[in-house]
C-alpha cells in the first residue's frame, strides 16, 4: 500500500531529476507514464484488499476513483508528450496523483485535507500557461474551499476527526457542491477554461472520490437535478453547429455523478466509466479522424460497456424506491430518475452518432489513437462482468458473463464477415472542433485571478485551522 500511495510521488521526483538529461528524457517520460498507469491499475485491483498503512484505510469507492483517475492522467501525459520529453507535466502529474490517492484512501480529516490541497496545488501549477487559467483557478479554489468547509463543519462541529462514510446536514451539501464544481459540471466555464493539460482526469477523479465516499447517502432530488443537467448538456451539444470539447467531456462525468448521488453503493463501474469516457474525449484533439466510433460508444454507455452496468443498477434501485412508497412526493424524484435513465441512454445514442459520424480532418498522434482503443477495450472488458444480477445466485453471474462474451464474439464476427462498405458520411464540410477558449476581457481576467487568490487563501487558511484544531485535541 505504501508503494501505491507514494509511488506517484517517487515518479514525480524521478521526472524532476531527469530535467537536464535531455538524451534520455523522452524515453524516461514514457517509462514513468507507463509505471504510473500500472500503479493506478494495481490500486484499482486492490480496492477490496483491506490493506492499511498509517492513516490510510481504503474504501472501495474512492479507491477506484483515485486509481482510475491516476491511470488516465498518466495515459494523457504519455499521449500529450508526443515524444518531446517534457518533464514538467510528468512531475506535476506525479504530485497531483500522489495527493489524490492519499486523499481518497485516507480515513482521517486532517491529512486527507492536506493531501487534497497538495493535489490542487499541482493542478493549479499545471494550468498556469492555459488561456483560461483565471477561471480555472477560481473554480479550483471554490471546490477546495467548499470541500474544506464541509469537512471542517463535520470535524469541528462533531469533534470527530475520522472521515465519515456519509456526511449529513450542511456538510453534505458543501461537499456535494465541491464534487460538482470539481467535476466541471458546467461546460465551457470554470475548470473548462483550461483543459489542455494532462492532469485533467484528476479533477473528475476527485469528484468521484468525494461522491463515492464522503457524500455516501441517497439524495434523489440532487441526483435528479444533476441528471437533468446532464441531459441538458447532451441536448446543447447536439444543437450546436460546432463540436465543443467540454460538452461531450462533461456529459459522462455528470451522468455518472447523478448515478452516484441516487445510488451511493452503485458498483465501481460508475466512476471508472465516467473517467474513461471523459479521458477519451480529452484525447480527441490529438486523435481526430481516428477511433471515432470507439469514442462515440464510450460516451454512449451502451452495453456491454462499464457504464451500462452502472445505469442498470441505478435504474433497478430507483424503480424499487419509486414503487416502495405510496407517498407521491417521496416517490416523485425516484420515479423521475427511473424514467430519465432510459432517456439518458437514448441521449447517449444520439451523442455517439454525432461523434461517430463527424466529418473531420485526419490529424492524429498514433499514441493517442492507441490509448483511445485501449480505453474502449478496458471499458468493454469491465462491462463483461455484470453487476445487475442477484449476488446470491453465483451461477447467474457466470451465465450472464458467458452471454456477454458470446454477444461480443457475435458482434466481432458480424463486423468481420457480414460488414458492408461504410456509407458516405453525411455533410459536406469538415466540422470544426472547438478546443481553445477565448480569453476573458482583461478586467474580468484580473478580477477572476484576485477572486481565485482570495478564495484559495481563505480555503487554505481554513484547512490550516482545522489542522491546528486537530493537533490541539491530539487526534493523532
Amino acid at each position, binding site marked *: 500500500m505504501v508503494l501505491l500511495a507514494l509511488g506517484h510521488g517517487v515518479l514525480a521526483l524521478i521526472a524532476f531529476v531527469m530535467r537536464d538529461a535531455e538524451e534520455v528524457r523522452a524515453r524516461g517520460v514514457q517509462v514513468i507514464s507507463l509505471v504510473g498507469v500500472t500503479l493506478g491499475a494495481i490500486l484499482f485491483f486492490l480496492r477490496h484488499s483491506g490493506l492499511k498503512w498509517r492513516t490510510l484505510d481504503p474504501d472501495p469507492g474512492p479507491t477506484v476513483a483515485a486509481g482510475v483517475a491516476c491511470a488516465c492522467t498518466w495515459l494523457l501525459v504519455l499521449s500529450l508528450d508526443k515524444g518531446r520529453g517534457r518533464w514538467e507535466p510528468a512531475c506535476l502529474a506525479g504530485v497531483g496523483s500522489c495527493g489524490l490517492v492519499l486523499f481518497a484512501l485516507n480515513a482521517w480529516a486532517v491529512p486527507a485535507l492536506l493531501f487534497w490541497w497538495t493535489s490542487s496545488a499541482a493542478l493549479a501549477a499545471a494550468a498556469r500557461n492555459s488561456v483560461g487559467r483565471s477561471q480555472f483557478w477560481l473554480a479550483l479554489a471554490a471546490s477546495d474551499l467548499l470541500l474544506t468547509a464541509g469537512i471542517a463543519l463535520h470535524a469541528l462541529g462533531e469533534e470527530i476527526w475520522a472521515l465519515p462514510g456519509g456526511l449529513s446536514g450542511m456538510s453534505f451539501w458543501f461537499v456535494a457542491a465541491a464534487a460538482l464544481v470539481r467535476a466541471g459540471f458546467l461546460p465551457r466555464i470554470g475548470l473548462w477554461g483550461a483543459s489542455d493539460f494532462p492532469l485533467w482526469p484528476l479533477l473528475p477523479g476527485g469528484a468521484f472520490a468525494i461522491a463515492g465516499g464522503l457524500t455516501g447517502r441517497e439524495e434523489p432530488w440532487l441526483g435528479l437535478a444533476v441528471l437533468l443537467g446532464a441531459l441538458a448538456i447532451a441536448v446543447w451539444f*447536439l444543437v450546436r453547429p460546432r463540436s465543443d470539447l467540454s460538452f461531450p467531456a462533461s456529459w459522462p462525468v455528470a451522468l455518472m455523478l447523478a448515478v452516484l448521488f441516487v445510488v451511493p453503493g452503485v458498483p465501481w463501474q460508475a466512476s471508472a466509466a465516467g473517467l474513461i469516457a471523459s479521458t477519451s474525449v480529452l484525447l480527441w484533439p490529438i486523435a481526430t479522424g481516428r477511433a471515432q*466510433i470507439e469514442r462515440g*460508444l464510450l460516451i*454512449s454507455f*451502451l*452495453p456491454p460497456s462499464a457504464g*451500462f452496468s452502472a*445505469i*442498470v443498477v441505478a*435504474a*433497478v434501485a430507483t*424503480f424499487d424506491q419509486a*414503487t416502495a412508497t*405510496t407517498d407521491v412526493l417521496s416517490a416523485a424524484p425516484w420515479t423521475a430518475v*427511473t*424514467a430519465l*435513465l*432510459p*432517456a439518458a*441512454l*437514448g441521449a*447517449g*445514442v*444520439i451523442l*455517439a*452518432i*454525432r461523434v*461517430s*459520424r463527424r466529418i473531420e480532418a485526419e490529424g492524429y498522434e498514433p499514441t493517442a489513437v492507441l490509448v483511445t482503443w485501449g480505453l474502449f477495450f478496458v471499458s468493454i472488458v469491465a462491462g463483461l462482468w*455484470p453487476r*445487475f*444480477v*442477484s449476488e446470491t*445466485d453465483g451461477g*447467474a453471474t457466470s*451465465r*450472464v458473463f458467458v*452471454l456477454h462474451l458470446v454477444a461480443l464474439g457475435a458482434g466481432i464476427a458480424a463486423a468481420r464477415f457480414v460488414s458492408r462498405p461504410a*456509407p458516405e458520411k*453525411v455533410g459536406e464540410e469538415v466540422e470544426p472542433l472547438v478546443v481553445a477558449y477565448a480569453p476573458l476581457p482583461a478586467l474580468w481576467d484580473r478580477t477572476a485571478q484576485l477572486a481565485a487568490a482570495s478564495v484559495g487563501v481563505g480555503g487554505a487558511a481554513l484547512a490550516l485551522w482545522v489542522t491546528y484544531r486537530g493537533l490541539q485535541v491530539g487526534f493523532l
Partner: protein
Amino acid sequence: MAYLLGLVPGPLVTVVGGLALITFGRALLLPLLPSARAVLSLAVIAGAVGIGALRWGTLDLAELRGVQAVLGPTVTVGPPAAAIACGIALGAAVVVLAVWFLEPAPGDRTDHVWGGFEVALVALALATIFIDPARSVLHGAGLAIALLEIVRWAGVTAVTAAVALGIARLLRDTGDFVRWVVLGVAGAAVAVAAALIAGTL
C-alpha cells in the same frame, strides 16, 4: 434475446440497452434527424415497456413472466384502468416499432431479413411484458405442454411483429412529417398510459 427467453436472469433495462445498441447500429447509416427519430422511437418503446413493469411493480423479467403465468397476460388483468393503460402502451409501442423499422428504410432482401429479425426481437419484448401467453413458466412442465407454450409464445410474437411490419408498409411511402406525427401521437399515448397506471398504484 437470451434475457427475454429466460436463458439468463436480468432486469428489463438490459433489454432496453440491447435495443439501444441495435438503434445505434441502425442510426450510423442515417443523417442526424432520422437518427433522432429512431432514438425517439426507442424512447417511446422503452416508456411503454416501463409501463408494463410499473403495472407489476418489478423490473425483473423472471418476475414479469411469473406473475403473468399466474394471473394472465398484463393487458387482460384488472383493475380496468391498469389494463387499459397497458393496452394503450402496447398499441403505441407497436405503431412506433413500425417507425423504428423504417429508420433506415430497408433496401434489398438482406436488409429486410435483418430488419425483420430486429422487429421480431422488439416484438418478443413486447409480447413477454404485455401478452405473455404462457400459463406455466415451463419449469417442471411436460414436453408436450412446454412445446405448446413455446409455440403460443412464438405465435404471439409473430403476430405482434406482423402488425408492426404491416403498419410500416403503410408508412413506407409517407414523408417525414407523417412519421413525426405518428411518433408524437404514440408518445402522447404512452404519457396518458403512464398517468393512468400511476393513478392505480
